[in-house]
C-alpha cells in the first residue's frame, strides 16, 4: 500500500526566499500526522504543494502514490482541506456556503453525515441561515471544519483546525478525529501550534524549521526517548550520588537532586534503592518542551 503522503527532495523558492528545501516526509495510511513548525517554517507551502496550489521548484510529492502535479485532480478528489486563514464568501449564508462547496466535490455529499457534523459542532439552523460575515470567528471556523470533513475524504489536511474554537468545540474536534481514527479509513495531516492537542491526537509528528524537516518521529518513541525530569527529595541531607545517576544530575541542593533521565525510569528508581528518599516528583512528558527546543534551535542539531 503506498504512503498516504510522500515527498521527495521537495523544494520551493519564492524568488530568493527559501520556503522549503529538500523536504522528505512520509505519512502512512490511516495515520494522524502532526506537522509542526514555527511561523514561516514552510508548513503551509508544503500543504499547498500537496494540493497543487503552488508548484515546487524541484522535487516531487505524492498522495496515495499519485503525483500531486500530474495527477492533481485525482489527488484533490481524495483530500478535504481546511486552510489556516479561513476564506469565506461573506455575502453567503452558512447553508449556501456548504451547498456551494458540496457542488464542487466530485462525489455526492452524505447529508446525514453533514447533519451529524453540524450537530456535533453545535451549529443550529439559525446559524446556518445567517450570513457568514455576521458570524463569530469560532463559528466561521466550525463551518471551515465541517466543509473539510463533509465529503468524508480519505485524506484530511487541516491547517490550524482549532484556532479560535472554545474548549467545548476543541473537544468536539478531538472526538471527531478519534472517531475517524477508529474507523481507520482516513489519514489526517494536521498542522497546529497547539502542542497538547498534537500530543493527544497524533501518532507521529514531523517538525519543520526554516524549510527543512528536522525531526520525524512517533509520539510513542518521543515519550520513550525524551529525558524525563525528576526531583528527588530526602529526609535529611542529600546523600552522595550513585555513579549510575551521575550523568543524569542537572542540579543538586542540600536536601534534593534534580535529574534528567533518558529512557525507562526503572533504572533511575533502582539506583535510588536504599537511599533516604522522602519524595519524587516526575514531570510528565510534554511534547511542548521537546518541540520548543527544536524551534529555538537549542536541541543540539545544527540545522
Amino acid at each position, binding site marked *: 500500500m503506498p504512503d498516504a503522503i510522500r515527498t521527495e527532495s521537495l523544494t520551493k523558492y519564492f524568488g530568493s526566499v527559501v520556503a522549503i528545501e529538500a523536504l522528505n516526509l512520509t505519512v502512512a495510511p490511516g495515520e494522524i500526522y502532526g506537522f509542526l513548525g514555527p511561523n514561516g517554517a514552510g508548513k503551509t507551502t508544503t500543504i499547498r504543494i500537496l*494540493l*497543487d*496550489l503552488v508548484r515546487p521548484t524541484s522535487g516531487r510529492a505524492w498522495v496515495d502514490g499519485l503525483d500531486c502535479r500530474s495527477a492533481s485532480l485525482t489527488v484533490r478528489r481524495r483530500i478535504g482541506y481546511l*486552510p489556516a486563514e479561513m*476564506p469565506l*464568501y461573506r455575502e453567503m449564508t452558512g447553508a449556501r456556503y456548504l451547498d456551494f462547496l458540496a457542488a*464542487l*466535490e*466530485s462525489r455526492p455529499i452524505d447529508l446525514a453525515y453533514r447533519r451529524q457534523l453540524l450537530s456535533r459542532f453545535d451549529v443550529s439552523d439559525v446559524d446556518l441561515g445567517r450570513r457568514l460575515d455576521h458570524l463569530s470567528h469560532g463559528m466561521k471556523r466550525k463551518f471551515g471544519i465541517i466543509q473539510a470533513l463533509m465529503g468524508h475524504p480519505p485524506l484530511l489536511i487541516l491547517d490550524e483546525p482549532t484556532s479560535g474554537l472554545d474548549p467545548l468545540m476543541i473537544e468536539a474536534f478531538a472526538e471527531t478525529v478519534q472517531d475517524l481514527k477508529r474507523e481507520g479509513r482516513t489519514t489526517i495531516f494536521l498542522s497546529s501550534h497547539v502542542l497538547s492537542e498534537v500530543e493527544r491526537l497524533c501518532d507521529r509528528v514531523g517538525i519543520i524549521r526554516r524549510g527543512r524537516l528536522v525531526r520525524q518521529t512517533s509520539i510513542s518513541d518521543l515519550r520513550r526517548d525524551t529525558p524525563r525530569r525528576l526531583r528527588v527529595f530526602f529526609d535529611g541531607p542529600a546523600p552522595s550520588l550513585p555513579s549510575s545517576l551521575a550523568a543524569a544530575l542537572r542540579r543538586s541542593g542540600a536536601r534534593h537532586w534534580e535529574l534528567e533521565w533518558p529512557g525507562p525510569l526503572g533504572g533511575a528508581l533502582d539506583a535510588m534503592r536504599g537511599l533516604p528518599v522522602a519524595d519524587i516528583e516526575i514531570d510528565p512528558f510534554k511534547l511542548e518542551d521537546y518541540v520548543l527546543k527544536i524551534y529555538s534551535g537549542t536541541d543540539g542539531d545544527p540545522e
Partner: protein
Amino acid sequence: MFLALLGRSLARHRALIGALAALLSAFQILDIVAAYNLQENAIYSQFAALVPAFIQEAMGGALVGSLMGAIAIGFVHPLVMLSLSCVAIYIASEPAGEVEDGLVDLVVARPVPRFFMVTRSAVAFAGGTAAIVAAMFATSRITVHWLTPATAAAVPASRLAWVAANLLAIVWCFGAGALALASHTRQRTHAAGTVALAAVSLYLLQFAAAAWAPLRPFARVSPFHYYDTMRTLTATVTPMGNVAGLTTAMLALLGVAYTLYGRRDL
C-alpha cells in the same frame, strides 16, 4: 461543478450588472427623447454647428447632428463605452481577487480543473456585458418605435445589432485583457486598475488621432479604432471585419489567460 462556479460569480456581480444595465438603458431613453425634441424643434443644424469638426469626426461624422446620430450616441458615447469596458474588466479580474482573498484555496483545493476558473470568468464577463448591451439595444428599439416609428424603420434592427455587436467586441477585448492580467497577478486592483487605465488611454488615443493626423497610425492599436457606428447604421459598411478582428484579439488574450493561470502559483 462549472455551473456552480459560474452561478457564484454571476451572483457576486449581479448588482453591478443590473445597475449598469438600468443606467445605460435609462441613458438610451433620455438620449432618444432629447434627440426627438431637437428634431421637433428643428435645431439639429444649430447643434451640429456648435460641435467642432474633429469631435464630430471622432463621434461618427456629420450624422452626429441627426436623430440617427443620437441613436448611435447611446452606443458610442465615451461614458457608455468606458463604463461597459470597466464592468467587463472588473468581472474579469475575479481570479486575482480570489487569490488575494484566499478563496482560491477553498475552490481549487477541490477537484476543480484550473481552466474552469478562467472559463468561468470569461463566460461571466462576456455574458454580463452581453446582457447589459442587450438591455440597451432593446430599450433603444422600444423608445425609437414609441417616439418616431418612421425613424425606426429607417434604422433596421439588424444595423443597430451590428453596432451593439461591435461595441461588445471592444468591451470583450478589454475583459479578456483584464482576465489575462488577473491570471498572473495576485491583486485584483492591480489587474482591474491597469487595464481600466489602458482602456481610457486607448480611447483618448483614438479621440486625439481624429484631431491630429500624426497620431493616426498609432490609433490602430486602440480597439476603439475598429468602431464605425455611423457608417454601420447607414449601412455603408458592415463591421464584420472589425468584429472578427476584435474577437480574434479577445481569443488570443484568453489563450494567454489560460496559459498563465495554468502555470501560476495560486
